[in-house]
């Protein structure tokens, strides 16, 4: 059962969501810790003055930050949707591939052992950690006969994620300095990310999104079960592997830029399904836009509620998104 019944309604919904995202992005550039008027924001683009503090804030801080928030949100939501399809479990998210746990351990380990301290080095370690963890989980989930099955992948992922998380906690408990250094990153944030970081991850995210959208039809078939998909002529092993690769590219990039942000990947696909049904050709684009909207709004709220202090966006996504999600789950989930 979905709210948008016809193809035209689905398309219109996508356009509306796109407009909402554009409005949110503009709001994210307009509002922030520093009070800058609308006209000054516009003049930062039309008449850029390098010596003006306002112009600098708008162009080098707010614009990249808004774009990064959108990109991270879209990546996480699409990766979550794929994971839920791949494991056929409504509770799955990129965390099931060990991505957040692997990234967190790699970064915390690097801070503890090597004393690294810049956001771009964190990004490097996070991406590597996420990739290694995902490969190990996928390998464990494919052990034994029959290759990767949703059940084996889910359980192996949950077990490995728990293991990695406890190692991270062990380091944080032993070493207070590392805890102090890294706790804001661990809460998930898009503050202080510059255009360069965005440019670094853009190719991976684009590739991941293209791969995901290209696989949308196959993933829909796969949710009907391996046998059905194979019966319809699908090479299920290959599709699953490519889908997992898309998840690693998307969620790995997201976590490397913004730190581990939960909730988005788990919840956005569910919200989307209420509107767009079960076809991944609609779920994926809807998830991308809705995830971007959620993260941009959450980041805006994170900057404004306690201005000039700032909350981590990973906290705000849950505080902004959960009430809406609980409302939908209460009224739209029948059985």
């Amino acid at each position, binding site marked *: 059962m979905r709210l948008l019944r016809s193809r035209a309604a689905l398309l219109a919904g996508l356009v509306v969501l796109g407009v909402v995202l554009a409005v949110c992005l503009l709001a994210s550039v307009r509002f922030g810790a520093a009070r800058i008027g609308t006209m000054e924001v516009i003049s930062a683009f039309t008449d850029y003055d390098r010596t003006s503090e306002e112009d600098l804030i708008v162009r080098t801080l707010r614009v990249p930050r808004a774009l990064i928030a959108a990109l991270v949100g879209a990546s996480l939501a699409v990766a979550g949707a794929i994971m839920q399809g791949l494991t056929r*479990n*409504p*509770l*799955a998210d990129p965390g*099931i591939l060990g991505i957040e746990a692997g990234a967190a351990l790699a970064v915390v380990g690097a801070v503890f052992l090597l004393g690294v301290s810049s956001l771009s080095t964190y990004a490097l370690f996070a991406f590597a950690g996420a990739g290694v963890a995902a490969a190990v989980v996928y390998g*464990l989930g494919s*052990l*034994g*006969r*029959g290759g990767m099955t949703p*059940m*084996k992948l*889910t*359980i*192996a992922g*949950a*077990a*490995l994620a*728990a*293991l990695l*998380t*406890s*190692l991270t*906690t*062990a380091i*944080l*408990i*032993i070493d*207070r300095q590392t*805890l*102090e250094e890294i*706790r*804001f990153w661990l*809460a998930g944030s898009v503050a202080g990310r510059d255009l360069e970081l965005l440019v670094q991850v853009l190719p991976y995210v684009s590739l991941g999104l293209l791969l995901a959208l290209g696989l949308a039809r196959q993933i829909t078939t796969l949710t009907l079960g391996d046998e059905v998909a194979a019966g319809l002529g699908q090479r299920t092993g290959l599709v699953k592997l490519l889908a997992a690769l898309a998840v690693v590219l998307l969620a790995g990039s997201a976590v490397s830029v913004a730190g581990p942000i*939960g*909730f988005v990947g*788990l*919840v956005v696909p*569910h919200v989307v399904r209420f509107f767009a049904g079960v076809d991944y050709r609609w779920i994926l684009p809807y998830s991308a836009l809705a995830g971007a909207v959620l993260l941009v709004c959450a980041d805006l709220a994170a900057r404004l509620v306690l201005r000039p202090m700032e*909350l*981590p966006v*990973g*906290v*705000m*996504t*849950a*505080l902004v*998104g*959960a*009430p809406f*999600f*609980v409302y939908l*789950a*209460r009224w739209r*989930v*029948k*059985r």
Partner: protein
Amino acid sequence: MRRRAVLRRGGLSLPLDLRAAAVVAGLLGASLVGIVLHVGVGEYPISPPDVVRALLGLSTGDENYYFIVNVLRLPRALVAFLVGAALALSGAILQGLTRNPLAAPEIVGINAGAGLAAVTLIVALPSVPAALIPPAAFVGAVAVAATLYLLAWRGESSPIRLILIGVGIGAVATALTTIMITYGEIEQVSQALVWLTGSVYGRSWEELWPLLPWLALFGSLALLRARHLNALTLGDEVAAGLGVGVERERGLLLLCSVALAAAAVATAGTVGFVGLMAPHIARRLVGPSHGGLLPAAAASGGMLVVAADLVGRVAFSPLEMPCGIITSAVGAPFFIYLLYRSADAK
């Protein structure tokens, strides 16, 4: 074909799965060995035979042994076992009720509620005496569970609605906890992390006595309901067709699950992994029928936490690791081995 014996007395019939009984006996035996070893190690090492003698109240070479074993060290080992058993039972019930292998007290927000309450006391209100943390955590867990049930109830409860709303509520509680972890005084944050990881450090008979009857009550209630839980895992329609009062049984089992998890978490902090994984370990050992699965899960959960606490005390001495960290380090490889073995068989 499984060998079964059936106990029949009057209108009551209780099928006994002999294989499950053997597995549970084995797990309990291993836990007992773990407890004896656990009690033996420490700054004042005592050999296992002396531990057993002291436990039984027999005379040993050293009269201090009786005090060290029975007063100082035994309660901690027993608390570890009970906490593990309670969490595992809670997880097994939840997984059966929701028909989802990822369901666990930590997934549906019960742990998050307890965590929020405890971390608030530790970080935001450090002047509050530490003795208030367990009851606060208990209240936090129960409050989340009650909110969850109320929000998910619409004339009938639905497993998928329960877990989705649980995830939502849990996310809010976790977010608020994260704020305190991110901005609190580093000293207190470090303490809060230990609590959030789960530890049985310094637990004595005082913590054990309230836990025991509580676990006995809700644990045995759950065991008596195992047959209905089996029916519920087949789906609401099938269960109703088998004559099970679906809403009543689900409510009752959920109550057991919440009560067990809340008591465990209040005693030892939010120990993760056990509630999620011990049921899977048990399922690989005795199969999916809850009559055997629930006791096997309880025994493996208990064994896991005893073993974890033992390792946490010995491996890094003189430093001590909270058992919550070690449970997954001990449990995950074991579990993956089981996964590998049974993957071949299937």
